């Protein structure tokens, strides 16, 4: 999985299960009932979907490539030469995002890279503090470098 992501590919995982008839009949009755509820319909349906979408068996994985547009790397280079800071927002997983960053010239191996992967605000704040200290240390002799920070949380931006 990680290998696919590292090559800048979009990955999906396939999983399956066989459902027993007795379980299914009960589930179906509940789901049909939930579909016609006037209140909390979507919550109830979501709950029932989650009840059946579990204990799956892995089948495999797929990888799809989304090619870069022409001249993206030179465009980003000129923006950077002009002193413009470029941010890219994406819902990709970190490996894919980093890899696309490299292939479009947004990142290079000379840059210090920080990855923040936190789900709570408390963790996030702590990490930002740590990075700030690190940057202060390095900034002294790497004054012309840009710092790219990937921020990735439970709420994904598309």
């Amino acid at each position, binding site marked *: *999985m990680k*290998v*696919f992501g590292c*090559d800048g*590919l*979009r*990955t*999906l*995982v*396939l*999983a*399956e*299960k*066989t*459902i*027993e*008839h007795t379980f*299914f009949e009960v589930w*179906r009755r509940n*789901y049909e009932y939930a579909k016609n509820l006037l209140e909390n319909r979507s919550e109830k349906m979501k709950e029932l*979907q989650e009840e*059946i*979408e*579990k*204990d*799956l*068996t*892995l*089948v*495999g*994985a*797929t*990888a*799809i*490539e*989304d*090619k*870069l*547009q022409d001249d*993206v790397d030179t465009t980003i280079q000129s*923006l950077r030469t002009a*002193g*413009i*800071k*470029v*941010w*890219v*927002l*994406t*819902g*990709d*997983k970190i490996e894919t*995002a980093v890899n*696309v960053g490299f292939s*479009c010239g947004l990142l290079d191996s000379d840059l210090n890279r920080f990855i923040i992967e936190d789900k709570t605000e408390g963790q996030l704040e702590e990490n930002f503090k740590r990075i700030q200290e690190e940057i202060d240390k390095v900034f002294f002799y790497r004054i012309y470098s840009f710092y790219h920070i990937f921020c990735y949380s439970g709420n*994904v931006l*598309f």
Partner: protein
Amino acid sequence: MNSDDSNPLDVHTSSLNEELGQIEYVFSDKTGTLTCNKMDFKRISIKGKSYGKIDPTNPKYINDYKDFPVVTNVDFRDRNLFDMLNNKESSEDLKKGLFFLSICHSVVAEMNGNATVYNASSPDELALVNFAKFCGFEFKGINENREIMINMENKENTFKFLYEFEFNSDRKRHSIIFEDHKREIHLFCKGADSVIESLLDMEQTKKNQ
């Protein structure tokens, strides 16, 4: 901007340059902006065996597609997959994977004369369904009896459609429930690895690896 003579660049105001010069940050999204949003199917991994990463100098590299169904959004060159598929003893898992791709999606098929035309909400979906077709597992649509029609290795098969839970950015997965000709009920679910991982029955998955 058009470089031919019919529509040359016309400068109305020069202050624009100065305004552009004040830009400090550029925020860009990725898909469709940095990238073409033209998805090509590249690789598949079934039961720990991966297909699709192949060097053009490899004798198993597929140079031309003349023996394959014509599809868009597929750039798959690994003949090893087809060798495996033709090997009766070891092809079971691979066939299941390809069948999976042909049935678990939200693509709509329309008949245009004799040809099936796919309508998909996303090019990713199109790439997956087309790859299945490329390998001989063709989705033919859903008939009036709510049966999913799949042509597998030149045989027509139907599966009773029961439920579909659609993909959204919250769920990050797409599921379909259907009944096969043995009256077995199956749930197929595809989605982001971060999500599917937590839905797996670890014991079962390990046994199958």
